[in-house]
């Protein structure tokens, strides 16, 4: 366990170092634009899996949390010219509050009903923002990036590093949950909520906790998008694509291990980026759908589940 932790944090530090040094070696801007999007999806998929994977509550409202993150940043930037760090922290707080409300919903709604309620949540929030003139309403709002903070050279390079930090944070939290009593409690309630409750697991408290953490991370991941695009409008900030992608990436990677959503997001995110450049941005949605179908049929436990199965079969083959 100890050795695993050292390995994990060394890996995380190396990853951040590479991202930080990338601007000195890569002069082309495109890898940063693409990298930012992939990192954003890793953060979203990992955050999604905290509730959807560990607790088994399928949340279709990723875009609601993401969009609220974007608009919290927009509002704070327009109203007070708040710096990026403040925008992200405030977005996390808003996401946590929304998560808390969502957690209370699980008191009465489980399974498919919970999922439908999260879609409704997205629509309600998107409609409210669409009718809020101050943040641009349906037409959207243009934002002017402030000058970049040294030591960074370009704003996008800085955003990539910030998003990488968020990814490390999300993965560290997800990994901690998996290895701690929180994860065991969530796993028990995912298997059987009543049995878990009768075995002493405080199911409601754990579900609310999972919703709060998941929501805070999703909104935090959304916050830098306002400055990344220098523009925000409700239909793209609350686009259902975020919900579907976060879910698909988690499921394709596998939710049994924290690494699953990371692998799924890298795989799917890079494929989408590649297709957007080489063919068209419409095709990548098709690919997402096809891959999801293939995995549901061929590897319902995702890549992580597939790997475990192969390893188990090999072991049995030897024994």
């Amino acid at each position: 366990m100890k050795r695993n932790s050292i390995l994990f944090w060394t890996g995380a530090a190396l990853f951040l170092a590479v991202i930080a040094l990338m601007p000195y070696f890569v002069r082309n801007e495109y890898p940063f634009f693409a990298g930012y999007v992939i990192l954003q999806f890793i953060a979203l998929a990992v955050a999604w899996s905290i509730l959807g994977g560990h607790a088994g509550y399928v949340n279709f409202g990723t875009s609601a949390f993401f969009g609220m993150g974007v608009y919290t940043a927009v509002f704070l930037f327009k109203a007070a010219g708040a710096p990026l760090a403040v925008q992200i922290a405030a977005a996390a707080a808003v996401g946590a509050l929304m998560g808390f409300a969502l957690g209370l919903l699980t008191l009465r709604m489980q399974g498919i009903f919970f999922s439908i309620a999260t879609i409704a949540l997205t629509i309600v929030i998107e409609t409210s923002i669409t009718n809020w003139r101050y943040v641009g309403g349906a037409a959207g709002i243009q934002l002017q990036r402030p000058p970049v903070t040294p030591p960074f050279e370009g704003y996008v390079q800085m955003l990539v590093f910030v998003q990488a930090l968020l990814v490390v944070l999300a993965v560290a939290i997800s990994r901690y949950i998996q290895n701690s009593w929180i994860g065991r409690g969530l796993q028990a309630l995912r298997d059987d909520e009543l049995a878990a409750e009768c075995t002493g697991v405080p199911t409601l408290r754990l579900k609310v906790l999972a919703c709060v953490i998941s929501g805070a991370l999703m909104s935090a991941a959304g916050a830098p998008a306002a400055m990344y695009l220098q523009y925000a409008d409700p239909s793209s900030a609350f686009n259902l694509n975020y919900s579907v992608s976060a879910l698909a990436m988690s499921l394709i990677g596998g939710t049994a291990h924290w690494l699953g959503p990371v692998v799924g997001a890298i795989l799917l995110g890079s494929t989408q980026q590649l297709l957007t450049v080489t063919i068209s941005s419409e095709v990548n949605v098709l690919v997402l759908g096809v891959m999801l179908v293939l995995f549901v049929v061929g590897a319902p436990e995702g890549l992580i589940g597939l790997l475990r199965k192969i390893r188990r079969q090999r072991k049995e083959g030897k024994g």
Partner: protein
Amino acid sequence: MTPSETDTPLLRISALTKRFGGFTALDNVSVDIRPGERFGLIGPNGSGKTTLINCISGAFRTEVGTVTFRGEDITQMPAHVRTRRGIARSFQIPRPFRSMTVLENLMVALDFAVASDPLVSAAHRRETAMSILSGMGLASKADASATTLSQVELRKMELARAMATRPKLLISDEAMAGLSSSEVDEVLDLLMSLAGHDITVIMIEHIMQAVMRFSERVMCLDAGKIIAIGKPSEVMANQRVQEAYLGT
């Protein structure tokens, strides 16, 4: 046992009523369970047995009446708090944690239900879980997935998981349903060995031989009402009990 000890009930249910819409599942049920008692709960299907234990374990909230456990009013407590106070149960249809091994199923109880002592290491808790499993004859299945167990093993695992919460009151909801007669004896012996001065057992069962052998006292429910309570032989001989089971 001193008279004062027997006077204070472990569990007191007073004037408990549970309605589902217009249907009254439990109607003004009052009963005291003494510490260390082996208590049998019988009644035809739909008479409210499982509803009653759902109200005791906290799976259902009640509108009318109170449940008192060891002198404390637990009527408004959520189920997991009641488990920590010492009420454990098995389920009529087994509800294992399917993604876990048998040992992990018990570890959930040890992690959450037993007051955590930082000095007690994970290895020690694992040992505790193993010793409970050995007591149930399930030690060889410790690392097997809960989905691979046979029916009787599942029943035993549920009892083991309940025991891992260190209960004062163990409620067994038809732990013998669907088992062969030799398996019934096996589970019955197990319940007999668990019951004692420290652990009170409420057993719901349809298998009359088992109820007769096990219980010191039997209560019969019919349509949500207590129709008879007393010594097993008396309850069996009761006219209304026979009518409830056989029809008139």
